[in-house]
């Protein structure tokens, strides 16, 4: 587990336009700049909302990250269904 690094990646993409651009151009390469497990890398590259949530990414990091990917409120809720 490297939750700190995973959240740092999401924070950088959400908040810094230069990081965001690098991430958008090459997500698979971008994740290599952080100390992540293979599972965490895959969750970022695939924008796997449910996996990122269960890995422990803070909800107020995760929701803005998914908004950058234009994931609607309905699809976000669907991804987290049953986790309440």
């Amino acid at each position: 587990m490297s939750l700190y690094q995973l959240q740092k990646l999401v924070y950088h993409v959400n908040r810094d336009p230069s990081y965001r651009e690098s991430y958008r151009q090459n997500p698979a390469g971008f994740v290599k700049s952080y100390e992540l497990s293979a599972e965490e890398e895959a969750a970022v590259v695939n924008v796997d909302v449910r996996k990122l949530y269960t890995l422990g990414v803070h909800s107020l990091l995760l929701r803005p990250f998914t908004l950058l990917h234009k994931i609607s409120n309905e699809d976000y809720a669907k991804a987290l269904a049953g986790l309440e």
Partner: protein
Amino acid sequence: MPIVFACAASHAPGMTAWTEAAPKEQADRFLRGYRKLGERLAAAKPDTLVMITVEHWANFFLNHMPAFCIGRADHYDGPVEEWLRIPKSRVPGDPQLSAALLDACLDGGFDPTFSDELLFDHATMLPLHFLNPNLAVPVVPVIINTLTTPMPTPKRCFALGQFLGRELARSEKRVALVATGGLSHWPGEAKHGKINVSFDQKFLETLKSRDQRD
């Protein structure tokens, strides 16, 4: 000089980002109320607007998370969110009042951090959009960590609020005070979109009755 205006209001980003998601009549009524507050604020002719709000990973991360931070910049840019449907703007600051507040806090038993560069997110830009739409009144931001544990206790936040109220009432400036946040909500969590009506009603009743026991 007594504080010339004070209010508490929601900063939920859906108000501008997803306005159409609410029934039109309800959205119109709510936003009319928000703009009416803005008219009352303008009528009070404040020199400075002190805004108490919360961190949302706009400025701070887990490498350094202050309990309280007072902005001391001469301007602030925002919003950071691309999707908020509020134009990017530069908001004037009031570094003189910020510095005076920081000195008063440190003398008075509070130890906020300070920052000469803060970005504003929806927590500040959305209320400003309705309350101070021309960004004519300079802003002093007071940011609280209600985001991630450990965070300041409600008792400590209440004490800081009382302290700031006393200090601002002694200022030579005409100060308006706006506190923003939300009632029950779980943004981004699995309960996203739900509210707890009975908690909200109890909270509002407690606020109205000025009951300080809890």
